[in-house]
């Protein structure tokens, strides 16, 4: 009994990477983005979000119950994971898959590692990855064209029709092209991302490094493989890159904390994303890139810190 009590005290004291106020603001902003997604698509999107949140809360509650822990304010962290997960999903995903994905992500990616503030991998991405491996067809093909409402097989990520015209840019900004829920309306992603950076919830170094470096890598690799890589500027707006750079990669728990590690982290994400987009079979690489760099980030942080000290 003593050990359990000390454990619960440790949770309250030692969550240095977590700021509860930031978690609340982040949850509200992500909910706004979900509402924008529901406006573009149908209210089924909101149902997906609600189911995801309920699943996450149930799992957190059961885990706390079994371990006899008092979560206290840490419960605010339970809202961010399901919201990010829903925003990364296509708008026509069956609800039971949402339950499976969020459940796996929260349990295997967060609770087992010791709960909020200790997870190595982003739990939403762990769930996404599990779902992508388990139901590859549904996750990569349940997209809707926002203007016509037809079911689409894929998002237009490497589409050659995107060549620098203002119309295409406006279409992307206002959400006229099929994409995942969170990244359909690029203007909303920009505005809410800017609010995040302005309130200093997210560090500006990581998104900036990711966007600049991925444009640079697209230009460099486009010299060698002109058929796979097209417009560097437009490549930033396609797929989930912008959303992930602002909302997922900036997670202070699974990402690094020091400045040099943050820049290397961003460059790594950009490089892996661009390489996967152009040269691998997978459609969108940014999720893989972020979770790979999550695994590497303790190494980056510790090894750079040791260099600084010596």
């Amino acid at each position: 009994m003593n050990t359990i009590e000390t454990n619960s005290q440790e949770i309250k004291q030692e969550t240095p990477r977590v700021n509860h106020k930031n978690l609340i603001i982040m949850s509200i902003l992500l909910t706004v983005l979900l509402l924008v997604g529901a406006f573009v698509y149908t209210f089924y999107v909101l149902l997906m979000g609600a189911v995801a949140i309920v699943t996450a809360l149930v799992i957190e509650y059961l885990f706390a119950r079994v371990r006899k822990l008092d979560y206290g304010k840490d419960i605010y962290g339970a809202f961010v994971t399901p919201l990010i997960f829903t925003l990364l999903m296509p708008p026509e995903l069956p609800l039971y898959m949402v339950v499976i994905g969020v459940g796996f992500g929260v349990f295997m990616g967060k609770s087992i590692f010791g709960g909020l503030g200790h997870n190595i991998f982003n739990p939403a991405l762990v769930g996404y990855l599990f779902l992508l491996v388990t139901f590859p067809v549904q996750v990569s093909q349940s997209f809707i064209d926002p203007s016509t409402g037809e079911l689409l097989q894929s998002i237009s990520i490497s589409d050659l029709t995107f060549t620098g015209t203002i119309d295409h840019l406006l279409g992307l900004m206002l959400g006229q092209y099929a994409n995942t829920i969170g990244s359909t309306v690029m203007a909303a992603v920009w505005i809410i991302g800017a609010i995040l950076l302005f309130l200093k919830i997210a560090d500006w170094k990581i998104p900036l490094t990711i966007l600049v470096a991925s444009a640079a890598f697209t230009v460099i690799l486009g010299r060698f493989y002109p058929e796979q890589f097209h417009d560097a500027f437009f490549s930033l707006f396609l797929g989930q890159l912008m959303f992930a750079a602002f909302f997922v990669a900036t997670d202070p728990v699974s990402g690094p904390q020091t400045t040099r590690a943050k820049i290397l982290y961003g460059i790594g994400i950009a490089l892996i994303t661009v390489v996967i987009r152009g040269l691998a079979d997978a459609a969108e690489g940014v999720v893989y890139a972020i979770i790979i760099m999550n695994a590497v980030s303790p190494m980056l942080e510790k090894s750079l810190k040791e260099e600084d000290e010596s």
Partner: protein
Amino acid sequence: MIEFTSLAQLIVATIFLNNVLLFSFLGLESVTTVEEKPKNALKLSIALLFVLPLVSVISFWIYHNVLLKVNDTGDILRDVTYLQTFVFVITITVVVVIFNVLIKKVFPKLHSFLGQQSIQLVSNTVVLGVLLININSVDTLANSFYFSVFAALGYGLVLMILTFIEKQLIDAPIPKGFKGLPLQLIILSIIALIFYGLSV
């Protein structure tokens, strides 16, 4: 000399998509022996990087010239390949011991840096496992050398990443039942899931 594009494919395939630790489950016992110390993992990886190509090339030669003899027309003159495991274990032991003696004489600093980790390779399954994959899937001596180098690199990389993650988790309130090996296996499985998702 191997071509650049096929070399790049071999690098990506061996280090990431067919990582020996993640997808063949080789060398899992070292995961527990490095004990959350990245330095131990680094020592093990460096020792492996020296030993594995050496053993790999020698055993490849032994397999194709001693255990299996084929004449020019393709007829099998001699086939004692059922002895392969036995012969490979002896080869590994001899090479590792000779390697240790040699670096003790020639590079004493390297020997004292590597310490016990290099002699422990005798009992590491990754060495024998890579040899057995090697003779089944690789066709030339040069390719077996490249394959073993990248297999050692991939193994070392994942082991280093894992130990750094464990170091970060040292203060985390992990549930009692998941402490140690279970959590290590879960971390490894999540990393494996990434590369599995990429190769599907």
